[in-house]
């Protein structure tokens, strides 16, 4: 058995193409996402035009100045500023005339301007309130992010990339490898020896579990040491959860290989399962934004409880016990996927 495991690991290590998809591909994701700065709000260039002496102008000047991302330039000529807006040299033009405030903005830059217009409205409201003599508003609103303030999008994303990478490599890798073994009649050749087929398959599974641990460690190392991601909770449980859930993905790989006539078809089936799951289960964004029916389906995909569980630990810093519902779901999936694989993949029919 030791020889068999060693040989299986050797085969995996020497299959450079499979190794690329398992190791380099998710690391590329971790690097690309690490290079984006998701926390930065884009700068808004504002031209402020009007009677500098008027109290409204003064109040606007103070209000706009209090927002960090606004770059305010005071201009004397409305016509020149309108031209600058047309040319794209400025994003927003605010003209103060008496007690009226006119806002002109470039519609093409939708996201920036949504933010800018809302902020400007707030400032106008505050000016109005002050003019009406209200200094202490009756209702105050204090907004704070739901997640702890020091959790960045990248911190949220990184455990997702680990789960995605492992899922992808295991489903596709296992399906293609087994399908190739069958096409080359290696499974049949094994069947002609006294070796029990289950031992051969176990060695394959074992080698891939080891690969997935290396893969996870590599993605985490790039995220943490290169891009400064901060993970909470126990790293050990993160690995345990990913490795446990990997059994599901390997079973799915076997099932796909059982259905496919050749390695190309196996790759196609495996990708058709892995790709939608990668996006729908919330690797890149929370699933709350999906339509209700889709959300309901997504709940029952095996990647979803894995992502939830590892984020509970690594993002929210909860103990493993907090993820008991997700662990129960994963256990059910391990059993179910084994039964499915057992039904769809028959060693003897190889």
């Amino acid at each position, binding site marked *: 058995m030791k020889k068999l495991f060693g040989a299986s690991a050797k085969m995996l290590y020497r299959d450079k193409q499979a190794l690329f998809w398992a190791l380099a591909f998710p690391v590329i994701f971790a690097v690309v996402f690490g290079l984006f700065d998701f926390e930065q709000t884009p700068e808004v260039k504002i031209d402020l035009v009007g009677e500098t002496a008027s109290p409204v102008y003064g109040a606007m000047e103070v209000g706009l100045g209090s927002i960090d991302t606004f770059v305010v330039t005071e201009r004397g000529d409305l016509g020149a500023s309108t031209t600058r807006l047309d040319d794209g040299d400025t994003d927003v033009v605010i003209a103060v005339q008496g007690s009226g405030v006119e806002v002109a903005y470039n519609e093409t830059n939708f996201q920036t301007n949504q933010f800018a217009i809302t902020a400007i409205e707030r400032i106008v409201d505050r000016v109005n309130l002050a003019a009406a003599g209200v200094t202490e508003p009756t209702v105050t609103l204090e907004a704070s992010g739901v997640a702890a303030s020091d959790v960045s999008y990248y911190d949220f994303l990184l455990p997702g990339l680990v789960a995605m990478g492992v899922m992808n490599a295991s489903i596709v890798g296992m399906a293609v490898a087994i399908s190739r073994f069958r096409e080359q009649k290696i499974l049949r*050749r094994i069947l002609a020896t*006294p070796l029990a087929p289950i031992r051969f398959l176990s060695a394959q599974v074992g080698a891939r579990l080891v690969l997935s641990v290396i893969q996870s460690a590599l993605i985490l190392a790039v995220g943490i040491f290169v891009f400064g991601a901060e993970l909470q909770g126990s790293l050990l449980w993160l690995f345990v959860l990913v490795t446990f859930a990997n059994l599901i993905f390997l079973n799915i790989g076997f099932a796909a290989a059982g259905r496919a006539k050749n390695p190309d078809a196996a790759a196609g089936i495996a990708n058709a399962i892995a790709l939608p799951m990668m996006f729908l289960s919330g690797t890149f964004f929370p699933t709350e934004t999906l339509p209700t029916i889709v959300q309901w389906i997504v709940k029952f995909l095996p990647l979803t409880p894995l992502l939830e569980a590892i984020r509970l630990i690594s993002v929210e810093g909860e103990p493993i016990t907090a993820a008991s519902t997700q662990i129960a779901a994963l256990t059910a999936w391990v059993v179910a996927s084994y039964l499915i694989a057992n039904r769809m993949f028959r060693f003897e029919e190889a």
Partner: protein
Amino acid sequence: MNAERITSEVAVEVHDLVKEFPSPDGGTLTAVDHVSFDVHRGEVFGFLGPNGAGKTTTLEIVEGLTPPTSGRTSVLGSDSVADRDAMKNRIGVQLQSSAYFQYLTLEEILNLFGSFYERALPPEELLDKVGLVDKRKSLVGHLSGGQAQRFSIVAAMVNDPDVLFLDEPTTGLDPQARRNLWDLIEHINHVEGKTIVMTTHYMEEAQVLCDRVAIIDRGKIQALDAPLGLIHQLPAAYRIAFATSSDLNENDLKALPGVESVTPVVLGGFTFELAVARASDTLPAFLDWAKENDVQVDDVQVVPATLEDVFLSLTGRSLRE
């Protein structure tokens, strides 16, 4: 035949074997149709037949790879189904066009397969048998067709089996590589004393290598005997071709002893071809007749019939159809 090489002990027993597959149209397809035969220890036993005749299916049932629909097979007294694991330790199996792990070296593959058995031969000894010792660190993909085929035979021998099954061992090889493989198979049988059960659709291969040949077609054994025995069953076991510039009457030729038929020949420089029962009876009579009748015989060739002719006479079809 070598009387000492072949014993009376039965190595492989196949009794009333039937294998049915569901056919695409919903019916059943009988791939093996009530087949029975014995292979003796020390023998090279061949299955000769066209593709789809049921050769491979029969072999795979004996090897324990496929369960039979009905009937019974055993190797060295171990039932192919009930005593499968005991049997597998004593047989070697080479599958038709099967590859080995593409990312392992020859040495690693032999080590790995050896670990599946109760006993195993060292890789160097195995590779030495087939002259591949210097390739022991190579991958299978880097071997030539003949080398890969030799390796697949030696890989089937890691457990030093008593009975070796070879499924179309020379298909796809060039004539030189095929002859090399024949030498190897002969060595394994004659020198190492292993019983060999093989399939082929090359009649020449069956004739050269096999002590006995079962001609199989459409799932049934049509004839089973030593190659020469099969040929001698034919009404015309030899052909005598000759060239002449004299005018001949075909009926005079037909009247010669043992002549079954007379065919005018267009190719190869010959004029007529006589199908005869025994060349040793007909040839002297033919030469005497030619002398007496002043027939100028420029060239004579005696060709024995082949298993191809046997197949043709048994099934009405050529092997290559």
